[in-house]
């Protein structure tokens, strides 16, 4: 059993945490081994080694192992150059975290799955709080832990419900028999499992942990969490809810599409307001999970309506976007880590002009920005195009209300794409272009940090130009679904499009002799030009803040300070911001309720052991009575 060996070796790797180079190398080897497993599983080279009663890799699972392997390998490589506080703790937890994620994907029974899930949740908590001496990190980690546990409980209850219905804890049995469950029962299971997986993926409104936990973690960990870990929620939805359960109530495609539309739109809107680069990227993870959910919604509709074309387009769009997002998001997170190591800050308002000091990272970031904004010829373009195509296929040949709904969702996706483009013009422009806004330190960024970023950039370019093989693999993942997969991408002619585009751009650049230009001072209306005259991150998005004021509910406050503040203010203090709607109106009341309830529970939780023993006794008595 190959998987078991990989899992065990991961635990051994974490034992070498104190030797930096050795431990980093071994983690890289472990990641490459995971990647190897994915290759074996996807191309079916050596399948007997990958199947077993407890752990097995089906083609669909191998796809997610591929996502995990790519991100893990690049993040491990990056760690050779990345300096951080408390190196050994990360080196200890990281291999176990990888093992946990591999275990989740390969699990074949409820017990293995839940154990691996908890290993993943708890190790990632320890990784998040690596910088525990900084303010706010422990609180962020704690919120993350609570949300993880809520997610695990929801999944466990869903699993137990399913297991009780089918009298089996084994996933292969579920795959065979879950389709025959009554629709009402399927809805309960869909709701519980969907809630659990949605929390783990950061779907709005369960996203509050994500923009807190991702930014405080070290860059390779953020990259792994955003690139791989939140995708396991997507894995759960595809495997258990869509493929295993089969036809469900028509409510669920609507729920998936609505959740996807809301997450993608609000995710990108919140991202626009961020000045901290990593928080901005974290909100974009929410947006992209939303786009993946749109693909899954199309797939679910295809299953319910028995339209295999829809099913395949939805599946391909969602899974391809899963891989693509893993690639360009870890690329951007790693670039953010490089920026932090180079300048010592992630606050965009202090940065600027980094393209001259770290050119390789800047190229990687701009390419990643193009990929995440779904611009040709990068991979994000292909998967977002597929999602659009899926939504627009619902528009035709459907009942009128469905057509209207699908067109509305497609418009939201269009709006999301445009906002994402704007957000990354802002991020690239403010951080890397123009004149530096403040003096910051300029530490060197080693090659071992910039190469993984550029490697991922090349991967996203490659997948954008040659998506064919990958699309064919995804369409063949579930044998029951395979429809003429090559037809899915027509009439795009990706290769021609990319070649013509790049050739035209290169030709024009040569024609315009871009290297021949004299540098002159910029125009500042005849005044001395200053760096503070440039647009900052908040002034760039002022227009959006005004246009979408009904969502942001912005507030600002101009206070007078000094000895005689009313008549002779010594200085003016300006504060502005947006209202954290979900925290204020959903989580704050929930938290208060939990607090109040726990006050009541102290009445029966006085502490003495005798009391608890008597509770146990009474419980057993009641159970015996009930069973009698």
């Amino acid at each position, binding site marked *: 059993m190959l998987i078991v060996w990989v899992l065990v070796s991961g635990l051994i790797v974490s034992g070498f945490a104190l030797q930096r180079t050795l431990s980093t190398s071994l983690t890289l080897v472990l990641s490459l081994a995971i990647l190897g497993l994915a290759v074996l599983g996807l191309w079916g080279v050596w399948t007997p080694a990958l199947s077993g009663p407890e752990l097995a890799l089906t083609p669909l699972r191998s796809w997610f192992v591929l996502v995990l392997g790519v991100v893990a390998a690049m993040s491990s490589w990056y760690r050779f150059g990345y300096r951080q506080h408390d190196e050994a703790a990360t080196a200890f937890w990281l291999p176990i975290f990888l093992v946990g994620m591999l275990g989740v994907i390969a699990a074949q029974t409820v017990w293995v799955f839940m154990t691996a899930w908890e290993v993943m949740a708890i190790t990632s908590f320890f990784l998040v709080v690596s910088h525990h001496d900084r303010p706010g990190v422990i609180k962020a980690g704690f919120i993350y832990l609570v949300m993880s546990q809520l997610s695990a409980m929801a999944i466990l209850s869903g699993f137990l419900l399913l297991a009780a219905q089918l009298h089996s804890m084994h996933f292969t049995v579920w795959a065979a028999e879950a389709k025959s469950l009554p629709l009402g029962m399927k809805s309960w299971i869909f709701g519980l499992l969907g809630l659990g997986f949605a929390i783990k993926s950061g779907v709005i409104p369960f996203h509050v942990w994500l923009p807190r936990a991702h930014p405080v973690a070290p860059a390779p960990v953020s990259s792994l969490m955003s690139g791989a870990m939140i995708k396991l929620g997507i894995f759960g939805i595809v495997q258990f809810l869509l493929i295993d359960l089969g036809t469900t109530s028509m409510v669920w495609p609507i729920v998936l599409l609505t959740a996807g539309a809301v997450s993608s739109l609000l995710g990108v809107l919140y991202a626009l307001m961020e000045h901290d680069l990593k928080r901005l990227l974290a909100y974009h993870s929410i947006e992209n999970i939303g786009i993946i959910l749109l693909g899954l919604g199309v797939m679910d509709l295809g299953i319910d309506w028995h339209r295999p074309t829809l099913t395949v387009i939805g599946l391909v769009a969602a899974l391809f976007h899963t891989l693509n997002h893993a690639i360009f998001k870890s690329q951007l997170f790693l670039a953010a880590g490089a920026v932090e190591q180079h300048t010592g800050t992630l606050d965009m308002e202090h940065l600027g002009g980094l393209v001259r000091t770290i050119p390789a990272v800047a190229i990687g970031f701009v390419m990643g920005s193009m990929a995440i904004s779904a611009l040709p010829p990068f991979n994000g373009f292909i998967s977002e195009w597929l999602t659009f195509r899926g939504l*627009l296929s619902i528009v*035709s040949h459907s009942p009128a209300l469905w057509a209207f709904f699908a067109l509305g969702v497609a418009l939201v996706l269009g709006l999301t794409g445009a906002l994402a483009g704007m957000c990354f013009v802002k991020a690239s422009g403010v951080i890397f272009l123009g004149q530096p806004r403040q003096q910051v330190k300029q530490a060197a960024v080693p090659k071992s940090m910039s190469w993984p970023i550029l490697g991922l950039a090349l991967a996203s370019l490659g997948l954008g130009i040659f998506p064919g093989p990958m699309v064919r693999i995804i369409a063949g993942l579930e044998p029951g679904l395979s429809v003429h997969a090559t037809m899915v991408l027509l009439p795009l002619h990706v290769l021609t499009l990319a070649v013509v585009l790049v050739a035209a*751009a290169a030709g024009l*650049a040569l024609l315009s002799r871009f290297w021949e230009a004299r540098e002159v001072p910029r125009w500042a209306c005849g005044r001395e030009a200053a760096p503070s005259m*440039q647009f900052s991150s908040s002034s760039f998005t002022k227009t959006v803040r005004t246009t979408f004021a009904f969502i942001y509910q912005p507030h600002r406050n101009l206070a007078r300070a000094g000895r005689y503040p009313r008549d002779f203010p010594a200085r003016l203090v300006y504060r502005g911001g947006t209202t954290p709607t979900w925290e204020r109106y959903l989580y704050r009341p929930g938290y208060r309720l939990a607090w109040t309830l726990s006050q009541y529970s102290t009445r029966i939780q006085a502490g003495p052991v005798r009391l608890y023993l008597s509770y146990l006794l009474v419980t057993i008595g009641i159970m015996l009575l009930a069973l009698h």
Partner: protein
Amino acid sequence: MLWLVQIIGTVLAVALGPLFVGVAQTVKARLQGRKGPSVLQGYWVLAKTWHKETTVPQYSSWVFRLAPSISLAALLVIAAMIPWGDTVPQAWPHNLLAVFFLLALERFWVGLAGMDSAGTFGGLGASRVTTLGTGIEPALLASFGILWVLSGHTSIQPIAPELERMTLGVLPWGLAALSYALVVLAEAGRLPVDNPDTHLELTMMHEATILEYNGRFLAESQVGIAIKLTAIIGLGWVWLGPQLGSPWANLGLRLVEVLLSSAGLGWVESRFAKLRYFQVPTYLAMAAGIGMLAFYLVVSGGIT
């Protein structure tokens, strides 16, 4: 044969772009009682700018120098994708969604160049242009609403013949055309959304992003503006306008239609004042709403 029509159509669309802009300017001048420059003025200006010395602002990088070429390349590919005859060769990309994404690519690089000019105006223009883009993209999708429901696919290729067979009545067609026209005004940066003639910082959007450009880079940007106008007006006529039998006749018809539309553009520009910037989202939402209305008329009428 198809290839030949397509290539000649693309070349003509690119070459005649400045002429169409010139026609709009001339019509506008005449309606305002001025004589106005020659319709060929665009070409003279281009020739002059191309031969001038090119400078770049201090603190700008390779992004600033490459952005005009990348934006222009995206617009050229759009122009090449429009079926100027009635069909595109099969092996050529012919996808409507790809047009949207290429427009986004152009906007992205225009924005980056604005940010890279390290001045106030560049950032201001970048912010305004990208914000405008967030309204344009959904409105453009909505104005094509009828198309999605009738054809069920996203290729430009068989749109026209398929629509030809549909007897929809005037109302949905008219609404869709109105919606598309409103979006074209915004996308091409014309009044009442953006004023191509001013250089006052309160009013300009696209002009602000290219304020620091001159010489060859400015020439590229100006060619780009002309091509964009020609291509998106042409695309509108491809699916809303009448079709003739032969590809050559279609090509000729398209060019005449674009010419007439440019004259119409001049008329619109002298009739309407520029909108306040924060009313533009409302304007674009209205365009999207009209497109959705046309869509609703088709869907509810049972035509599928």
